[in-house]
């Protein structure tokens, strides 16, 4: 599952640490999410999407959508 976290973060000039703090995870988790090594749970995906003021589908790109 790909995501637009890094792009959205850079667009809004937010650091990984700031985003991590806002959604209650470690910075390492944000790094892993951005690099695609780890898939967020539904709860974390919801928190991240809500932080950016977007829907989950706007932030996380599911496999079905790319095919």
């Amino acid at each position: 599952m790909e995501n637009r976290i890094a792009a959205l973060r850079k667009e809004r000039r937010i650091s990984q640490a700031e985003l991590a703090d806002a959604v209650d995870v470690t910075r390492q988790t944000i790094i892993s999410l951005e690099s695609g090594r780890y898939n967020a749970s539904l709860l974390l995906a919801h928190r991240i999407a809500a932080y950016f003021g977007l829907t989950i589908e706007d932030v996380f790109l599911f496999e079905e959508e790319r095919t």
Partner: protein
Amino acid sequence: MLSKMMSGGADYDKSLRLRLWIGAALLLIGLVGFACWFLVVPGSALDDHARGFYLGAATGVTLGAVILLARTGWLLTHPDARKKAQIEDTDERELHITHTAAQFAGLFTFFVTVALLFCAVAAPLPAFKVLFGLMLCYGFSFGAARMYLSKKL
């Protein structure tokens, strides 16, 4: 590892209070170990190996309990440290790594146990060495799996 597994719930304060109880229970076990070392062991026919086990285990458990109680007490009274610890303890990636590593270590230890049983039957190995080897095996495989998953995830 256990503290991470215990902190998956939504109420972190509740999990900290539970840790206090666990710390107190561990302290009691350690003190019972020391009591045995002072009161029961001197008059017993136990060999040096067993005597050493009482002292070592009691010291280890007591020290662990004191560290757990001190850290938990600190977290309950310092909101900034508590917030940081909560994020580290409840981080879903960390919990995923811990659970996967525990799962791997359990499975790995199971297979090593089967191999050790063959060794224990073939050679006159004392049961203590077999059990100690198993504990080392679990600890090593858990640590190795955690390190690998931390880099992979």
